[in-house]
């Protein structure tokens, strides 16, 4: 911000702008991007907090064309990785690869054998801990060590990944390339944790506002689910789409999708974790391709989804944290146009997030039993997946199973597993109370009588710069601004044809030839 650029730096920025235009087709950097890129190009460690939709990937993609060596991007989620690889391929970049646990071993060795040709390498933290991978990487030059979703390194973050704890060690093993740690949201405590755990030195902070100014906010209090559905239908019959409706459970996603389809005739589908992988992928592709007006989903949908023209995000049930809420509404209007986020709130909804929090941890009985069985040798730790599955078979959630695993794996030989029971319980109480605090913050947001935006900004120690025209329900919000031009879409959509010949011809581009 304040620092003056020297000649060398302004030269680098000019080159960066050139790349931005040539490769990505943008004339200008968005706010924050230039500063991050400038620091990265100068070889500094950078901590960047950039809200979802602010184009954080540009911050390491542009330097990738200017620095010598591989840009290594550590990404916790496969879907995220896949999406980023695709985006680079779409701009014509061929030297981009991903390494993750789901790959065929042959493909993995192909990637490792051709490391030198690669410009961008996306990798999962687990993969980075494999000896063969680390050895191969230590033989090539890395220009930048990017830690995406950096909040995963923090125990206080909402998405702690134990594999992230080894990143500092790995980075030093790879010759300490400059590090860029990126996250969408992190409060001060999490920020400190990240910088310490990643061992960032003389770090430069680039903290962008979490404010998504082009998304208007509203909370609607209702008495019952029936009223919610009624309100939702009214809303959907008018406002601009496509949209997402977030629900607390899979039954709700199916039920609401059904009602909307029947009542409004919108192209609606549902998406949740209980579906077959192929079906989930189909629905996701339909949504991305514009074959759907509305998607009713659980929070299983969204990570790594890059659809710039989502106009509406509805919460049929509210999430457990402000952070999750901002992430989810942040999927609206990434193209910078006006978007709308509406949350329907009934008192009794609280049991959903409370249930999630409970499910995050094992209860005392299960914990005690598992520790005892480990002592007796009835349960074994050798195979992580088997261990996790066997806990899940006993009714533990995936998060709870992982919690136990992370705590028992450090018990050394000769030590009694049961001896860590109290220690685990203490941790649970601690983490639970953090989560309950976050939930009560969320509820304060729902019940607040002042500007919604000012409220969430204050959670991140920010204040509002200027009043917006379309801010929130407390500031006064009329839905007229969001109305769609023609309320009923009655066009025939080619993708819905069931005529097999026509369909197949379109897929194979045969309709353009003569048949």
């Amino acid at each position, binding site marked *: 911000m304040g620092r003056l650029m020297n000649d060398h730096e302004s030269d680098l920025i000019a080159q960066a702008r050139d790349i931005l235009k040539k490769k990505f087709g943008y004339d200008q950097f968005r706010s924050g991007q230039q500063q991050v890129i400038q620091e990265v190009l100068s070889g500094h460690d950078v901590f960047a907090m950039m809200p979802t939709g602010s184009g954080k990937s540009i911050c390491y993609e542009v330097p990738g064309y200017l620095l010598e060596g591989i840009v290594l991007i550590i990404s916790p989620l496969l879907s995220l990785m896949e999406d980023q690889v695709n985006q680079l391929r*779409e701009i014509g970049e061929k030297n981009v690869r991903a390494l993750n646990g789901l790959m065929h071993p042959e493909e993995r060795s192909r990637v490792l054998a051709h490391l030198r040709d690669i410009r961008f390498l996306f990798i999962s933290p687990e993969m980075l801990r494999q000896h063969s991978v680390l050895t191969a990487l230590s033989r090539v030059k890395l220009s930048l060590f990017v830690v995406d979703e950096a909040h995963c390194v923090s125990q206080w973050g909402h998405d702690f990944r134990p594999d992230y704890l080894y990143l500092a060690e790995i980075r030093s093993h790879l010759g300490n390339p400059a590090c860029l740690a990126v996250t969408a949201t992190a409060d001060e405590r999490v920020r400190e944790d990240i910088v310490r755990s990643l061992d960032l030195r003389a770090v430069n902070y680039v903290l962008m506002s979490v404010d998504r100014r082009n998304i208007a906010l509203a909370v609607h209090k209702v008495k019952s689910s029936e009223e919610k559905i009624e309100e939702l239908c009214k809303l959907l019959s008018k406002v601009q789409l496509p949209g997402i409706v977030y629900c607390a459970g899979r039954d709700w996603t199916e039920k609401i999708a059904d009602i909307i*389809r029947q009542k409004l005739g919108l192209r609606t589908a549902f998406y949740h974790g209980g579906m077959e992988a192929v079906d989930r992928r189909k629905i996701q592709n339909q949504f991305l391709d514009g074959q759907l007006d509305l998607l009713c989903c659980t929070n299983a949908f969204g990570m790594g989804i890059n659809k710039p023209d989502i106009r509406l995000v509805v919460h049929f049930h509210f999430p457990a944290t402000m952070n999750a809420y901002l992430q989810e509404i942040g999927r609206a209007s990434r193209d910078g146009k006006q978007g709308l986020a509406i949350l329907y709130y009934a008192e009794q909804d609280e049991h959903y997030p409370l249930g999630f929090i409970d499910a995050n941890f094992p209860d005392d009985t299960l914990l005690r039993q598992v520790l005892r069985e480990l002592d007796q040798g009835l349960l074994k730790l050798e195979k992580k997946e088997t261990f996790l599955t066997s806990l899940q078979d006993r009714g533990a959630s995936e998060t709870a199973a992982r919690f136990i695993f992370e705590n028992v794996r450090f018990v050394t030989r000769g030590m009694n597993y049961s001896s860590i029971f109290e220690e685990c319980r203490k941790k649970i109480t601690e983490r639970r109370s953090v989560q309950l605090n976050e939930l009560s913050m969320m509820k304060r947001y729902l019940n607040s009588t002042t500007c919604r935006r000012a409220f969430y900004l204050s959670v991140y120690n920010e204040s509002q710069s200027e009043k917006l025209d379309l801010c929130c329900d407390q500031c006064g919000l009329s839905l007229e601004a969001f109305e769609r031009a023609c309320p009923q879409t009655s066009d025939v959509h080619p993708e819905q044809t069931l005529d097999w010949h026509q369909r197949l011809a379109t897929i*194979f581009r045969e309709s353009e030839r003569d048949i």
Partner: protein
Amino acid sequence: MEYRYAIILYLVNQFRGERTISGIYHLLKGKKSSQSIQDSFLFHVEPFFHSCEDLDRRDFKALIDECMSRRWISSPEQDSQRFVLSSEGERVFSRLDGHLLTPEGLNFTEQVNEESRFWLKLQLMVQTLSALLYHQRAFLPITRQPSVTESVRRCIMEASLGRSKLAAYFYRELVYFLQRCPASEAELLTAQLTGYKMSGLTVKQIAELTGKDEYECRILFKSALRRLMREIAEFPNYYPYTGRLLIVKKSALSLSAEETLKLIRSGLSLHEVAKKRRLSQSTVEDHLVEIALKDRTIDMSNYLSDRLEKQILEAASEAKTKQLKPIKKLLLDRASYFQIRLALAKEAVRRGEDPNGTTDE
């Protein structure tokens, strides 16, 4: 009557209360356990094995509950998970046309172990070719299963002709097949295929769009898929490219059972096979039952004498059951469970192939 009720009534009737409702669920899902495979033969419902692989347990449970509340099925013992048709159920069932339940292609089960993988490969191949034809640089693949991705990749790399030619051949082969397929089946298969800007529909979506029953959609699709696999196996010359996605196996045996068969043919005893393959004896026994079900030419007299086989079958018909325990008891433990299963398996094959042997008495 909606197809979903018909299929439940049909299967409950076939199972005659000798298996729990989970048995029916596993049959439809195609659980790869010897119990499920064997059941499909014992109760003459092989076509339905693996016919609804995407079935959700809760949806299935709801359907069973519905059949119960309509008083079509009931449990002979209280609190039991075994069901039989009630008299009302029998009345409704007797008016059904059984042929409509089983489209022809559903019976082509010889490649049942390969069908999921083949279908994934086909979908990914079509999606990839479509992306190539439209010059789409990147797309989200329909599956990330490494073995599927790898074999589609290899298939494209190995085809010496240009990619648009390859696509044209695939298109031609698919059209050739679909024209020979009943229209409703062709529709169901094609609607699930994904291409550029045309993502495939899920079976649920197709059911909604067509107003057809979801279970019927699944069955029609499976019929189409199995027809395609049989066509490829029988007329490989007509499907030089699509055929590359299918490893046509001569026998329908699972890989593991095939391995066991090889060793037995080389002269090893059951016990030796188990030891050599580091399997439990009962797993090897499962293999033998599977072999007996799928290949009647293999001689089983080392494990089951003709005399004992006859006694077992007599006991079974006396006890009027296919459950092992009562049969074993009636024989005063002269036969092992393995021998009883083997005898029942051989009998099931005989009856299935005998045109005069009726399946329902």
